[in-house]
């Protein structure tokens, strides 16, 4: 995956509709659902066994930077718009760009204590994003320094989302992956879809 250089203001790159995004190569990333049997609580394992986790199975990704900041433009089909908790029966849709903290973190378990994952996380009910660290399913902790910016719109059955953060936070990682939580399918914590392989990230 290549992040091309677009010498544009941050606020322009944060717009998913900015015409300059057409210049960034488009990658279609296949996603799969996490394994209910690997979930950390006996309740979740028992209740989700045999159920479909990770209903979002395809993600279109573009990446660009302006030397200071790196932006990912994510787009995926989602017929059910979940901007919040609704009447309490759904969860807000969410997505994250993942970076290996160190070593070779297992994406199928959202990292491990020995190999953590850094995430730039977006949730549909919140302005802005979160910098999180995972060392397994549902283990996320906010990082000491918060720097993630996001902008998202849902229209015509599709989410269009831009997640950005400082380029230097991503350049030494060299690899990237993605995760999506579909709120209408009760996806939260370790129940989500993810790209099963780390993708090489080159900064153009």
């Amino acid at each position, binding site marked *: 995956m290549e992040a091309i250089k677009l010498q544009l203001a941050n606020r322009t790159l944060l717009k998913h509709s900015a015409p300059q995004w057409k210049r960034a190569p488009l990658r279609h990333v296949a996603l799969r659902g996490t394994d209910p049997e690997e979930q950390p*609580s006996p*309740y979740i394992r028992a209740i989700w066994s045999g159920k479909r986790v990770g209903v979002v199975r395809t993600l279109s990704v573009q990446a660009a930077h302006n030397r200071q900041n790196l932006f990912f433009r994510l787009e995926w089909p989602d017929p059910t718009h979940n901007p919040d908790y609704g009447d309490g029966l759904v969860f807000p849709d969410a997505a994250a760009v993942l970076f290996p903290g160190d070593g070779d973190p297992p994406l199928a378990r959202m990292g491990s204590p020995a190999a953590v994952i850094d995430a730039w996380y977006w949730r549909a009910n919140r302005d802005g994003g979160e910098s999180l660290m995972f060392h397994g399913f549902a*283990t*996320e902790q906010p990082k000491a320094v918060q720097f993630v910016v996001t902008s998202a719109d849902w229209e015509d059955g599709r989410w269009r989302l831009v997640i950005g953060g400082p380029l230097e936070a991503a350049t030494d990682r060299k690899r990237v992956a993605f995760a999506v939580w579909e709120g209408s399918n009760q996806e939260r*914590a370790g129940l989500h879809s993810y790209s099963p392989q780390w993708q090489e990230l080159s900064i153009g």
Partner: protein
Amino acid sequence: MVFDLNKCMGCQTCSVGCKTLWTRDEGQEYQWWCTVNTLPGRGHPRDWEAMGGGYSNDVPQAGRRPARREWGGGWDFNYDEVLRSGKAQDVHLQVLGEQPEWGPNWDEDQGAGEYPNSYFFYLPRLCNHCTKPACVEACPRGAMSKREEDGIVLRDDKSCRGYQFCLEACPYKKIYFNFAREVSEHCILCYPRLEQHVAPSCVRQCPGRAVWFGFLDDESGPVHKLVKKWEIALPLHPEFETEPNVFYIPPILPARLTEANDFDESRPRVPTEYLESLFGPRVRPALETLSREMETTRSGGKSELMDTLIAYWWKDMFKPFDQDPGEIEWSRTAGEQPGKRAG
């Protein structure tokens, strides 16, 4: 904790005591950690008994979260219009916006049965601080725990991310989601009071002397005697297998009346089958014990059980948590220890 359903008069002082103390912040408007509902009734949240959770043969059972409209409550009223606009003669107090279809204590005093043999009673409910808490096991982040020293089920606010598996797993639906802070919240059994030997608010506020509080294994205390010795205090829905630590003495109610307005003691006013559906098969022996002991006192005898239920000495109902909260200088700052009020 033991509630005597023969003495609870549905006054809601426990509910309001709790509400006043713990759930007055943003996102808690609809939360009532302690509620009193009329039974038979649909309860709060509406039809909670059919929402699943708990265990069956030790296997976690799927549960669902109540919808916000099934809780109801937290409404805004037209106070300004009624009290300050000079229209008090023309408008009545009402909920603003979407009209509610349910709320806490919604079906108050409806009950069941036909006059003159209709029946109802009140059921106070709070977190059961279960011995086998399904919420603790459900949380994927380990945010819920059962405190070693006293068994109180607590949630680590810093660790909670609002994923609500605890709400699903709790078969009593006594956990609330705070939509403003995006965390789950539930009764903390007034642990800051307990640490100062003060009984929980719902216990100490009860004007009907209907609730006892103490350690279940304190053999000299009334809770142990009511639950273990006389076996008249029973957990609600034991079939959920979470082993609640809140117990109820089943209600007897006055005798039925015949068409000629004579007492009909051939069967109880509250069908025993209904009480069994709430408290399990131990209801019958519990009611037999109660009837026997009542008969003893009626015929001039002495009954330790009846003396306990009458509760002659208020503070004996919750020893050793009988410290007067008015004598303590409380602090709202986390981590700061309360002290004794001077003078």
